[in-house]
């Protein structure tokens, strides 16, 4: 047991150096978890997808719309429980920098199909009654300081003109990974104006959300829906909500890949910081180890001492990093809030960070240990610093 006491005493011998090493490691471990969380944020949409929902879009690309009349035809496909629709609006709130997602939805069915958006009953009633009403996510409302009753004006990019809305509700997410930064308003409000100003664009929607009774049959059902519209003017492409959301991640594939690479480079930095300290420590203590060997300490004592110290520092550094994740993660969340609907650290990431720190702790001890063991006692004793 006494060896542990020795390990802790050794760790405390160069207080400043140990502190700096722990700090350096902590920062690097924190960088690892924050970058991993950023990567996860890209996949959040796919994670939050429900297996019993399909998305039907125009076969050419998302920028083409489908006729509303398809809703009834999709609903008739066997195994379809419910059909709703959502259209990307792409409006600008004051400045293009204030980007957030806006969807024109079918107010009668959409919120039923997406139970993860929790809206108080009275606010939902108001949404059903007020044609220009909008329901916004909690995070979005916090970002711009909106509350129920506020008038909001968006400048349309896809649909020209200024569009006025009134916030009638604020929704919260049922789960941690639910997107709380979207802006929903009624599609009939959009269509009513299009009918007046651009009649050829009226009666179209961006995507259909299709709820199916049996998630096991999603592939088969997707084909059945697409078959229904084959060779029509508007051919469709139907896929699971997860696949639909993943297609956005694949668009940014290079950036996500870059982030993954960087997250491994961080582990390299942890390695350098700790390796540097351990190398210094071992060099300074060569003569000491020689004395210990002379006194009868065995090889495994020396090995245990060096590995023990390295692991203690690694553990402290790892812990510091994991603790730092929350404050720094929140800063990043604020800075990049517009880009990510959700930003939550996965517990697995913390485990990975901890494991990485310990592995680095082991690796950093190898070289100094070899040096300590390979130095003959006489040689070690001869060193006078």
């Amino acid at each position: 047991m006494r060896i542990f006491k020795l390990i802790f005493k050794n760790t405390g011998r160069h207080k400043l150096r140990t502190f700096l090493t722990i700090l350096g490691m902590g920062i690097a471990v924190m960088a690892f978890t924050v970058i991993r969380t950023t990567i996860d944020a890209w996949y959040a949409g796919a994670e939050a997808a429900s297996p019993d929902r399909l998305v039907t879009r125009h076969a050419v690309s998302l920028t083409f719309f489908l006729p509303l009349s398809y809703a009834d035809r999709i609903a008739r496909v066997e195994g379809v429980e419910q059909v709703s629709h959502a259209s990307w609006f792409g409006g600008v709130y004051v400045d293009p920098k204030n980007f957030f997602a806006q969807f024109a939805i079918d107010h009668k069915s959409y919120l039923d199909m997406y139970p993860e958006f929790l809206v108080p009953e009275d606010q939902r009633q108001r949404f059903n009654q007020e044609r220009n009403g909008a329901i916004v996510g909690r995070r979005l409302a916090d970002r711009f300081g909106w509350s129920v009753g506020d008038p909001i004006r968006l400048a349309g990019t896809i649909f020209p003109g200024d569009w006025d809305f009134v916030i009638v509700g604020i929704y919260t997410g049922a789960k941690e990974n639910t997107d709380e930064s979207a802006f929903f308003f009624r599609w009939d409000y959009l269509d009513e104006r299009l009918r007046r100003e651009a009649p050829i664009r009226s009666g179209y929607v961006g995507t259909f959300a299709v709820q199916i009774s049996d998630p096991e049959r999603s592939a088969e059902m997707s084909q059945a829906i697409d078959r229904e519209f084959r060779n029509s003017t508007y051919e469709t492409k139907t896929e699971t909500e997860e696949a639909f959301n993943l297609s956005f991640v694949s668009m940014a594939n290079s950036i996500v890949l870059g982030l993954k690479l960087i997250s491994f480079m961080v582990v390299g930095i942890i390695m350098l910081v700790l390796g540097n300290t351990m190398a210094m420590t071992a060099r300074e203590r060569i003569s000491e180890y020689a004395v210990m060997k002379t006194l009868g300490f065995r090889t495994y004592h020396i090995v245990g001492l060096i590995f023990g110290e390295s692991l203690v520092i690694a553990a402290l550094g790892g812990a510091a990093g994991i603790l730092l994740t929350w404050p720094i993660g929140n800063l990043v969340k604020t800075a990049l809030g517009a880009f990510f609907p959700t930003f939550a650290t996965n517990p697995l990431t913390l485990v990975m960070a901890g494991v990485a720190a310990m592995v680095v702790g082991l690796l950093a001890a190898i070289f100094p240990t070899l040096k300590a063991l390979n130095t003959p006692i006489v040689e070690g004793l001869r060193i006078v610093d």
Partner: protein
Amino acid sequence: MRLLMAYSWRNVFARRLTSLLTIFGIALVVFVFCAVLMLSNGLRQTLVDTGNDNNAVVIRRSAQTEISSIMYRNDGNVVKADPAIATAPDGSPLASGELMVLITKTKRGSDKTSNVPVRGVSDKAIAVRPNVAIVEGRMWRPGSSEVIAGAKVARGFQNAGLGEKVRFASRDWTVVGIFEADGSGFESEIWGDYDQLAPAFERPIYSSITARLKSPEAFAAMKARLENDPRLTVDVKREKQYYYEQSSFTTTYINILGMVISIIFSMGAIVGAMITMYASVAGRTKEIGTLRALGFSRLTILSAFLVESVLMALVGGAIGVFGASFLRFAEISTTNWDTFAELAFSFETSPQIIGSALVFAAVMGVVGGFLPAVQASRLSVLAALRTK
């Protein structure tokens, strides 16, 4: 001063392993720093090069991008009649009314899909954009289901190569030519005949009109005329400005993320440098005492250690910049979120990037070396000499 520099420089080599580890740490940080700046610079450069100073782009007011812009064909004729627009030898205006749509296609060598911009162009398209040239194959024949593909699309997407058939809008289109455009954003597009594409996509509209100006100075007058014309609701932008704006969302994302990562990384490297410098001071206590006894001032000692730290950081910075310069050979292809379309570009370095990377490295050296250097300069001569 020469002596001081030599002393610092040699000290970097005195403790090879720790110095090397520190230098390598700083190199890694500078590498990431450079990579991020080069990435957003490359994206921006590609888009800015797409534009031409002599051209103006007309899109529907507040549409921001061609994808969401819709102008009726009559409006197009009003725009084309503007007196600021240069004329072709036959007297017709040098302006190309174009349709821009996105099609989702599968990338080569994977099952991942992305959006490819398809541009339906007029016969003036190439006259308006002198940097576009067909390098393989030929131009499409009017009235046929033929298209030409930008070199980067042809390389990056399935069925988009020369002679292949790419399917969209319920038709098969034969790729009869490959074009290049000095590495600009056009190389990420597929071009076809407007008169074929507009009916095929059922979009009998213009997304944008690109016009060659009689002179760059004519722009302001043209902008005022068209934007105030009661028959039109359009925005008129210089082509360079238009494409520059299309890089804002993605470059902002890359820059914020990159800066956060660089700053966090740099703190790690600074701590590394500090550890090394403290050890360096501790190991040379006696030496410092001797130097002080010989008459070197505290300030000189402080400078010597600071210079040592900065030298180390600069070596690391140079290695990082050198390593990052190889990234220029990599081609990146990602979705530009401003346009929702796939854009191929490469890491692009610039003197400013190299400069700021080296300054960044030097700052890490100063910050990391300062406290240890102060400690060294504060040692009392007697105490320092007495250490064994």
